[in-house]
């Protein structure tokens, strides 16, 4: 078993209104100096050792992310 983390983020050129809303809220709460917030998704997968990186990439690109609007990264977490 291994833990795999897939992070999915909106592409830099895609407007992220949710992140902007969070960034806009922070000064109102008294937090200064936060220039930008971008909001994405974080997936944690428990996978068998037989699952190779190529398969994980297919999962990330084919389902977890929409490559038209999102970038993704896959990393294995040491346990």
């Amino acid at each position: 078993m291994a833990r795999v983390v897939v992070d999915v983020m909106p592409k830099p050129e895609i407007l992220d209104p949710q992140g902007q809303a969070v960034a806009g809220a922070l000064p109102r709460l008294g937090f200064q100096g936060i220039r930008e917030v971008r909001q994405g998704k974080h997936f944690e997968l428990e996978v068998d050792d037989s699952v190779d990186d190529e398969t994980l990439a297919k999962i990330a690109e084919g389902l977890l992310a929409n490559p038209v609007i999102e970038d993704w990264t896959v990393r294995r977490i040491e346990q």
Partner: protein
Amino acid sequence: MTARIGVITFPGTLDDVDAARAVRYSGAEPVDLWHADADLKGVDAVIVPGGFSYGDYLRCGAIARFAPVMTPVLEAAGKGMPVLGICNGFQILCEAGLLPGALVRNDKLHFVCRDQWLRVENNTTAWTTRYDAGAEILIPLKSGEGGYMADQPTLDTLEGEGRVVVRYVGGNPNGSRNDIAGICSPNGRVVGLMPHPEHAIDALTGPSDDGLGMFYSALDALTAAIAS
């Protein structure tokens, strides 16, 4: 024999009943299709209606594209069957790769629910021949993730090939690039749009009957195909 137009229901679909009603108004026969169906019951065209299929989990349309019924839809679309995706249906067709681009959260984050003016930019698709080119129509828009996004080369292709079918007029409601409300496949048989023509088929129940033209157009296309 009149044309038979399938209307797909996924768990979470909302507008299948109105879509079937619009098909009936136009004179075609609506056929109920279920997300788990493995075939299309011999229909001549398919409508993927609006709603929140599978609760919009993961992304709008991301789960629905893998529903069993989508396999024969993709196959039939490849052979030229007319397919109309409305709202969540448009999102599903984009996720499935039948149409380019993607729909994202509205730029102001608000769910937009209003009667929306559109300009018909392409009246040669299977779903828009009943409109005059440049006609302005009023149909409801109700979506939280209706911002049409595509990279610049894709936008240039869509604009260059006349594949923007309808465009928002009187202000962009959701941040869609180039004010795009709906697009079509290269052969004009597959159309997707965010606004809801099925809610504008009778002045008694909608802001206009401007949406009915889409269903008449499909019936024209199918009747011509059956006759030839």
